[in-house]
């Protein structure tokens, strides 16, 4: 009877872990919604940080994440294409694959320190470009691995059909293979965008922050996440409320982009 009891205990404990995990999700989302919504006003979206709103921060954060994506997506996709279509799975390809996996897990604060050394210190001031570079470095390995994995799912008969039609290799890749993997790659891009838009550590001493609205990437650039970090630690109630409002907006953006990505691939697999 003992082993049946042990079995029961383990099954109950496992189920309990899942319940605990999900409760944390709901606990966090509930407090964010409760605190965030009560601190949100129309003026939160129309004012800049200096007037107690987050307009410039949203624009700044999106600007940096978007430009970083514009740089990281082609580089990452081409790298993934090389790994899957040109490398013939050579030794070099597996080295590159491993390096990019390693880079994906490098601590983000270290990337911030690195970018500070090469793009901030020499110019003597924090700047938006440095923030963009830091986010780009974070994003590239994610795009590489997504593209690599998604291209692997494309059946080789499609490539063979392309060759039979007399297509040149790069045309086959662009017009047949990548097209076939389009949905999966797009999902990967959305997920990685959701990841970098919520990053704080790589921005702390690259873009830093700006209270005012600006589009000048050569100076300190407004960041939503860096502002949350600053605001939350101020003692006054107004700053804290703004931090909650900003956190709520940020989490909503991240989760919506994330769910959109997942929804696109819902019928695949």
């Amino acid at each position, binding site marked *: 009877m003992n082993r049946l009891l042990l079995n029961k205990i*383990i099954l109950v404990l496992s189920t309990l872990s899942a319940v605990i995990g999900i409760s944390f999700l709901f606990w966090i989302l509930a407090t964010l919604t409760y605190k965030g919504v009560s601190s949100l006003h129309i003026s939160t979206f129309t004012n800049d940080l200096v007037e107690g709103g987050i307009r410039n921060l949203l624009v700044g954060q999106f600007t940096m994440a978007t430009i970083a994506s514009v740089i990281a997506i*082609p580089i990452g*996709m081409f790298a993934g294409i090389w790994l899957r279509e040109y490398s013939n*799975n050579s030794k070099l390809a597996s080295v590159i694959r491993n390096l990019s996996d390693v880079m994906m897990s490098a601590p983000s604060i270290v990337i911030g320190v690195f970018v500070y050394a090469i793009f901030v210190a020499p110019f003597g001031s924090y700047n938006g470009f440095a923030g963009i570079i830091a986010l780009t470095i974070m994003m590239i390995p994610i795009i590489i691995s997504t593209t690599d994995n998604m291209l692997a799912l494309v059946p080789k008969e499609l490539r063979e059909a392309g060759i039979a039609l007399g297509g040149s290799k790069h045309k086959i890749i662009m017009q047949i293979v990548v097209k076939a993997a389009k949905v999966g790659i797009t999902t990967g891009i959305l997920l990685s965008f959701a990841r970098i838009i919520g990053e704080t*550590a790589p921005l702390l001493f690259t873009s830093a922050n700006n209270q005012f609205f600006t589009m000048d990437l050569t100076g300190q650039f407004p960041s939503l996440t860096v502002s949350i970090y600053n605001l939350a*630690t101020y003692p006054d109630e107004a700053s804290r409320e703004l931090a909650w409002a900003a956190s709520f907006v*940020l989490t909503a953006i991240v989760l919506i982009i994330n769910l959109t990505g*997942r929804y696109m691939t819902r019928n695949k697999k």
Partner: protein
Amino acid sequence: MGGKLFKNFSFFSATISFFILIGIFSILFTYAQDSIREFGFDFLGSEVWEADEDDEEIGIFGGFIPIIGTLLSTLIAMAIATPLAMGIAIFLTEIAHKTLVKPVSIAIELLAAIPSIIYGMWGLFYLAPIIQSTFGGQGVGLLTAGVVLAIMIIPFMAAITRDSMNTVPDVLKESAYAMGATKFEVIKDVIMPYSKGGIIGSIILALGRALGETMAVAFLIGSVMSIPSNITDPTTSIPVLLANNFSEAMGLEMSSMYYLALVLFVVSLAIISVAKFYFLRQKVK
């Protein structure tokens, strides 16, 4: 012509991870030189961190406190996260009814998508008071940082463990059940041994992630340069020290910060490499 250019550009893009990694290492190493020359490996065991008020080129800097803070907070996080993540993975692969698997998986993955700064803020205003009233202390400290770190790495660990548990062939499990094994015995004697590599790999990857986590810990560890004598005591960690003091540091102190970043970078890479190459080796499709 176009084909050649396309191929070359692809190859160039593929090598970029290599150059960035080399770049990070050489930059950190170069800027850490002053500190490395001054303190050598003793840096890692010295607990004094004192800048000279007048001369930025002198002062005594040792990384022991942030290093020990990083290790202890990670240890607490791992101790809490590992059993829970295993439980969730077992629940998802062996216990949950088919209709439950999808929503629970999505919920766990959403937990992983929440930015770390949100965890930090939530932990500061909601978890810290609870920890303070239950365990004493000041609210912020090692334990609070460890608990929030655990919540952050659980989904990550659970997802990889679940994936590797899913690779166990049904035939193996069915034969064990046919012999009269209970579910727990199947998990312990069939699933665990079969997916051992993936499970250990996921634990090590989560460890790497916890070591380098900045924002959640920055709110919660207390950010003071002192050795904790109690689990609820405040201290600091490498990422937190960098986040709070890096931009104001000068001279030798700055160089010591680079030294700490280098230590963190090398340790993280070593841990990730062990996990990837040794335990999570994927067959190339």
